[in-house]
C-alpha cells in the first residue's frame, strides 16, 4: 500500500520531531511494484514488492550526516535520526551546505494512475498470454518484461517545507526471435497510465521486426547516413537533458567546457531545429513537481534552436557563481522547431543509408566530446534509392553525441513520442523524435543476433 499524504506527513513530522540538529531534510518513499517476465514462449520469473524507506539528512554546525531505513515503527524512526546525528557529529564541515528550503509552492502534475499502481494480476497474465500467443502464431520465440509500479514520495525540512507527490509507470518490452536464432526484433513502450500502454503494438512490432530481419547480409563497417527510430534515439539520448551540469562545465570537464576556462553557453553547437527542454506539466511525459533539490520545477530550455541556452546550476553552485539555481530538469524532451518528418519520408529521401531500431551496451569512451560506443541490435536495414533493400548484420559504433546532433549532420527530425531506453528497461522515459543524420560511425561488425 502506498502511503497517503496524511500518513506520509505524519512520518515526516515524527522524524523532524526527533531532530536535535541545526537543520534537517527528511523523506519517506513508498512503493508498490510488480513484474512478470516471459521467455522461450513461457512464463518465467515474476515478483511483487511492497516497501517504504525513510531517509534523514541532518547538519550540526554545518556538519552533515545521513541515514536511511525501511523499518518505520516509532523506535526505528527515532533510531535513524539518532544515527544521522551521530554521523554528523563525527563528520568534517560540509563546505557545500545550503540551508534547507522553507515552504515552497508547487504546482501539481498528473503523473499517477491508480490502475497502474494496483494492476490486476489476471489482466496482466492475459496480456502476456496474448503476446506469447501472437509469437506462437507467427512462429517466433518471444521473451519480454512487464512491470508496473506506483510510488509515493514525501519530503520535509526543518525550515518548514513539505511536499507529497505520487507517480506511476508501466512498461512492456518484447523480443521476438526466429527459432533458428538468425533474426530478432524488439519493441518497448511505457506510460504512467496502464490504459495507455498498447500491448498489441509492442508484440506486433517486435514480431514484424524479427520477420523482416531474416537473411541479414554483411556490410562493411564505415561511415553511413542513418535513420534512427525513436527507440534508437532513446537508447543514445535517454538521459540527455540531465547531462547539462554547469559545475563540471565550469570546472573544464564536460563537453560543454570551452578553452580558457569558459563554457559553450550561447554557442550554436547543435542543429538549429533542435530544442531540448524539461516541462513538468507535459501531458504525455509529466515530470515531478519538485526538482531533486526541492525547488518547484519549471519549464526550462537547455537547448533552443540549436543554441546551448542553459546549464544546470545546483543551489550550491549557483551561489558560488552568483546565479539563480535552475528549476529542473525533471524530464527529457527533444523537439524539432520545424514541421516533423515521418520515418517513411526519411526512407524515401535516402539514397544510401541504414535504418536503425535499437542500440545496446552503450558506454562512454571520451567524455570530452561525449563519445559513446555500443552496438546495433534487433533490426538494422540497408536503404538504397529511397527503399529498404534488405536487413544487415549488426555493427559496433563509436559516435560522438555532440557530432551526431551538430549543425550539418542532422538532416531530418521526426515527431517526438514517448519512449524509454532499452538499457533502462523502459524506466527512464523521454519524448524523443526519429532522426535522419548524414554520418554515423560504425567501426566493426558483430555477428550477434
Amino acid at each position, binding site marked *: 500500500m502506498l502511503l497517503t499524504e496524511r500518513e506520509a506527513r505524519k512520518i515526516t513530522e515524527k522524524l523532524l520531531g526527533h531532530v536535535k540538529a541545526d537543520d534537517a531534510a527528511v523523506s519517506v518513499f513508498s512503493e508498490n511494484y510488480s513484474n512478470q517476465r516471459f521467455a522461450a514462449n513461457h512464463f518465467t520469473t515474476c*515478483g511483487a514488492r511492497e516497501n517504504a524507506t525513510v531517509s534523514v539528512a541532518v547538519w550540526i554546525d554545518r556538519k552533515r550526516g545521513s541515514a536511511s531505513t525501511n523499518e518505520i515503527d516509532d523506535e526505528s524512526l527515532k533510531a535513524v535520526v539518532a544515527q544521522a546525528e551521530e*554521523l554528523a557529529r563525527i563528520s568534517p564541515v560540509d563546505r557545500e551546505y545550503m540551508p534547507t528550503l522553507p515552504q515552497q509552492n508547487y504546482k501539481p502534475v498528473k503523473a499517477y494512475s491508480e490502475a497502474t499502481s494496483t494492476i490486476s494480476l489476471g489482466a496482466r497474465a492475459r496480456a502476456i498470454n496474448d503476446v506469447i500467443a501472437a509469437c506462437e502464431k507467427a512462429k517466433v520465440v518471444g521473451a519480454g518484461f512487464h512491470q508496473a509500479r506506483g510510488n509515493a514520495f514525501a519530503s520535509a525540512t526543518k525550515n518548514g517545507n513539505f511536499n507529497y507527490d505520487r507517480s506511476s509507470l508501466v512498461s512492456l518490452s518484447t523480443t521476438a526471435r526466429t527459432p533458428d536464432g538468425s533474426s530478432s526484433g524488439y519493441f518497448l513502450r511505457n506510460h504512467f497510465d496502464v490504459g495507455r500502454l498498447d500491448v498489441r503494438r509492442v508484440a506486433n512490432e517486435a514480431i514484424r521486426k524479427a520477420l523482416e530481419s531474416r537473411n541479414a547480409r554483411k556490410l562493411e563497417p564505415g561511415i553511413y547516413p542513418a535513420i534512427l527510430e525513436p527507440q534508437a534515439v532513446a537508447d543514445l539520448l535517454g538521459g540527455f537533458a540531465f547531462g547539462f551540469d554547469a559545475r563540471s562545465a565550469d570546472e573544464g570537464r564536460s563537453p560543454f567546457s570551452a578553452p580558457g576556462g569558459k563554457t559553450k553557453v550561447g554557442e550554436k553547437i547543435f542543429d538549429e531545429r533542435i530544442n531540448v527542454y524539461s516541462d513538468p506539466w507535459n501531458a504525455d511525459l509529466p515530470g515531478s513537481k519538485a526538482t531533486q533539490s526541492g525547488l518547484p520545477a519549471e519549464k526550462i530550455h537547455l537547448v533552443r534552436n540549436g543554441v546551448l541556452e542553459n546549464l544546470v546550476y545546483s543551489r550550491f553552485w549557483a551561489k558560488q557563481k552568483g546565479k539563480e539555481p535552475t528549476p529542473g530538469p525533471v524530464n527529457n524532451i527533444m523537439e524539432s522547431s520545424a514541421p516533423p518528418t515521418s520515418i517513411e519520408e526519411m526512407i524515401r529521401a535516402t539514397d544510401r543509408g541504414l535504418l536503425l531500431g535499437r542500440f545496446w551496451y552503450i558506454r562512454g569512451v571520451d567524455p570530452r566530446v561525449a563519445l559513446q560506443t555500443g552496438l546495433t541490435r534487433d533490426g538494422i536495414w540497408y536503404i538504397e534509392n529511397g527503399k529498404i533493400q534488405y536487413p544487415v548484420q549488426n555493427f559496433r559504433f563509436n559516435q560522438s553525441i555532440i557530432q551526431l546532433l551538430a549543425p550539418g549532420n542532422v538532416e531530418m527530425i521526426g515527431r517526438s513520442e514517448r519512449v524509454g531506453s532499452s538499457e533502462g528497461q523502459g524506466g527512464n522515459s523521454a519524448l524523443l523524435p526519429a532522426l535522419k543524420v548524414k554520418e554515423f560511425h560504425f567501426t566493426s561488425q558483430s555477428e550477434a543476433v
Partner: protein
Amino acid sequence: MTTSRRTFLKSAGIAAGAVALPSALPSWIRDIEAAEAAAAAGVDKNALADIAISIAKRLGVSYADIRINRYRNEAISTREQQVQNVSRSQSFGFGVRVLFKGTWGFASSRRVTPEDVRRVTAQAVEIARVNSVYQRKRIAMAPASKVTASWKSVFERDPFDVSIDDKIQFLLGLNQTAMKTEGVSFVNSSLSFVNEQKFLASTDGSRIEQYIIRTNPGLNVIAVNRSTGDFQSRSALAGPQGMGYEYMEKHDWNREAEQAGSDATQKLKAKPVTPGKYDLILDPSHLWLTIHESVGHPTELDRALWWEADFAGTSFLTPDKTGKLKFGSDIVSFVADRTQPRALATVGYDDEGVPAQSWHLVKKGIFVDWQTTRDLTAASPRKKSYGCCHADSWGSVSFPRMPNVSLEPAPANTTMEDLVKDVENGILIYGDGSFSIDQQRYNFQFGGQTFWEIKNGKVGAMLRDVAYQSRTTDFWNSCDGLGGKSTYELGGSFNDGKGEPTQSNAVSHGCPVARFRGVNVLNTSARR
C-alpha cells in the same frame, strides 16, 4: 532445526570469551543480539519460515523458499579536502518464492510479521496460480539435500566497527597524496561497505544463515588543461574485494594515489595511439573485466536457453558446443568458484540451498561446462546445479547469477617482463576503462586506465586514446603467454547488472598477466 545464537557464534568461530565483553563485540554480534531481542517481540525467523512453508505446502506448491534478510550499507564520498557524504542505510524484509504447477510466484514485504508472512505467501502462490493457467512449459526444480548451517565470509576487521573518522581521514589522506602531483585538478574518493545477513528456509527442510562482508574503495583523479580544454582521468587499479577493513590497511593505497596523480597528468601529454594490430600485454587490473564480459556472461546457461533474450541477451555458446568448442588456446583454463577466499561472489550456500562449489568452465582451451541453478539442471549437460542462484535483496526474486570466474595462471613462474620481451610492437594496458560487448558476447571493445608502448621487448612511452576490439574466441585463441602465480590478482565488480528488473551482483575475477597476439586497436579520440 532452529539455529540458536550460541550455535551460530560457535560455527562462525567466535570465542566465547568475547561474548562477555559487550563493548568489544563486533557489530554483527550486536546485530544478532538486537535481532534476538526483536524476535522476542515477535520476529522469529524460524517461526516465520515455518508459517510460510506450511502455508505454501497447503496451497499445493511443489517447492517454496523464504528469505528473511537484512542488508546494511555504509558509504563515504569525498572530493579534494572535503567530505561530500557520509551515510548509512539498512533494509530488512522477506521474500517468498514458490513453484506451483511449474510456474514461479514471488512476493515480498518489509513488514516482517506472522500476519504479513501469511498474506505474502498466499500472494506469491496466487501470482503463480493465475499465471499457471497460461503456462506452456512447466519449470522443474532439481532436488537438493537438506542443509542446516551457518556461514560467515572470511574477514579480519568488520568495517562497520571502524570509526567513521578513521575512514574519512583515510580518504582525505589519499586525496592529499594524489593532489601533490602538479597538474592534478580534482580528486574523488569513496568507500562503501556492504553487510548481508541472510536467512533461507525451504521446503527441502533447509535452514541456512549467512553473514557476508564486502568492501569497495574508489579513487578517481582528474587533470584539466584549462587553456586547451583538454582533460584526462585515472581511476585506482585496485578494486572491490570480499574482505573487511583490513583491505584498507594492507594494500598500499598511498602508492595507488601517487601513481594515479602522476598518470593523470602524464595522460594529458601522452602520444595518441596509431590505430592498427598490436600484441597486447594485459595486467590483471585490466584483464578481469574482459574475462567478466567475454567468459563470465556467455557461460551462463540461462542465457543460452534464451531466458535472458529480452535484455542481457543470449550467448554464442550453446549446449551442443559443450566439450567441443575451442574457446581459447591450450594454455587457457577458466575456473568458476564460489569458495575462493576474498572473492566477491563467495558464499557458503546459494539462495536455494546448494553448497558453494568450484568447477572448470574452460579447460586447456576447450569449453567444458556452464553456470547452473536448480531450475537449469534439467537442461545442463552434467545435470547438476553448481549453486549459482542469487537475489540482490529480500525484495528480489533469486535467479542465476555469475560465480567468481578466474583464469588459471601458468604453472611456471613467468613474469610480466618475460612476456614483454617477446613483443616487437605492442601495448601494455593497466586498469579497467570503457567496456562494451554485444548481446551474444562475440564482439567487444575495451579501454583501460593507462597504456604503454612496447617496442622490441621493452616498455616505453605512455600512449593515450587506446581501445581494442576483438571477437571472444579469436581473442582467447590469440593468448600465447600467461604469467605465473606471482602475477595473479583478483579484480571484480561490486555491481554487475543482469535480469529484469536489473539486479546487482558482486563478483570477482582472478587472473595473471597475459599476452595476446595481433589484436585490433583503435584511436578513440573523436577530435582527430
